[in-house]
């Protein structure tokens, strides 16, 4: 190890140590909730009929910020797609063999269940559209690894993924626009006339499950698109090959 490496190691060690000390000291003192958090905890059920307060904050009080985050993911997918412009998906891998394929085939139903559960129960239990969407994307990647990208890319083509992503983003915006149509604010929840239902049941919380579903579809297809873009290559013989 050179001297410079040792210096960098020392700096990172000191930095992590300091961060740890601050974190532990802070964790010891932070018992009382900040004012805003207490207010959120108190009014979540009355305002949005949602048991999971995190989801109330993300999709009701701060829904516009969530739209911004969704835009960030959209921009990153666009950026990766722009990097791989002119590249084609060349399916090569054949899969992981008959044993793994059969085993995953039996387990796949349960694997599907998990992201769908996280998305649909986002207003009741921890999780939500983003987490469930990423889990769904990882599941698509897993199926591609196990069954080979040759089969995977014919079932779930990039074209379909793009369609799904656009549909998710549009659905989010349309649900937000319902608020304006009803004479309330953009992305308003109960104020826009969405039925609140009884808090704690599956069909409750107004627009939050719908927004979760839209985000889940959008994130899953967007991240799966990134994976497919990473798999694609430039054709070495074609005229459009770049360096």
């Amino acid at each position, binding site marked *: 190890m050179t001297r410079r490496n040792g210096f960098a190691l020392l700096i990172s060690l000191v930095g992590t140590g300091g961060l740890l000390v601050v974190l*532990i000291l802070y964790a010891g003192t932070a018992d009382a909730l900040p004012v805003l958090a207490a207010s959120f905890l108190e009014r979540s059920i009355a305002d949005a009929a949602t048991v999971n307060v995190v989801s109330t904050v993300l999709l009701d009080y701060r829904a516009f910020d969530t739209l911004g985050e969704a835009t960030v993911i959209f921009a990153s997918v666009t950026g990766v797609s722009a990097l791989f412009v002119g590249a084609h998906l060349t399916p090569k891998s054949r899969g992981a063999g008959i044993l793994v394929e059969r085993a995953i085939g039996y387990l796949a139903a349960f694997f599907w269940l998990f992201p769908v559960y996280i998305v649909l129960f986002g207003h009741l239990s*921890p999780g939500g559209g983003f*987490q469930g969407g*990423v889990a769904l994307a*990882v599941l698509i*990647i897993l199926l591609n690894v196990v069954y080979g990208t040759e089969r995977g890319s014919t079932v779930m083509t990039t074209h379909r993924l793009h369609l799904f992503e656009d549909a998710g983003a549009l659905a989010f915006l349309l649900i937000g626009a319902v608020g304006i149509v009803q004479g309330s604010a953009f992305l308003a929840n109960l104020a826009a006339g969405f039925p609140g239902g009884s808090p704690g049941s599956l069909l409750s919380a107004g627009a939050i499950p719908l927004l979760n579903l839209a985000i889940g579809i959008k994130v899953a297809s967007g991240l799966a698109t990134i994976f497919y873009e990473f798999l694609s290559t430039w054709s070495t013989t074609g005229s459009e090959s770049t360096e």
Partner: protein
Amino acid sequence: MTAYEFAFLLLLALLVASALAAVLVRGYITSIIVLSVFSVLMAVVFAFLQAVDVAMAEAVIGAGFMTAVFVTAIAKTRRNT
């Protein structure tokens, strides 16, 4: 020091150790696997701090998606060079 605090400190130490190991270990694939271990530990820390939503996102993104993307990228670049 209660058992809870001790477990939390042990977790933080493991976190630092796995982060260091991810940098110091030889080989890209090994480094990525250690990085996903780091992500799982980070998710447990978040769960300890009662931020279960963040823990779920960290576990799914760090251990699932990033590992897949890194492995794909390395498999792609190694073949061409």
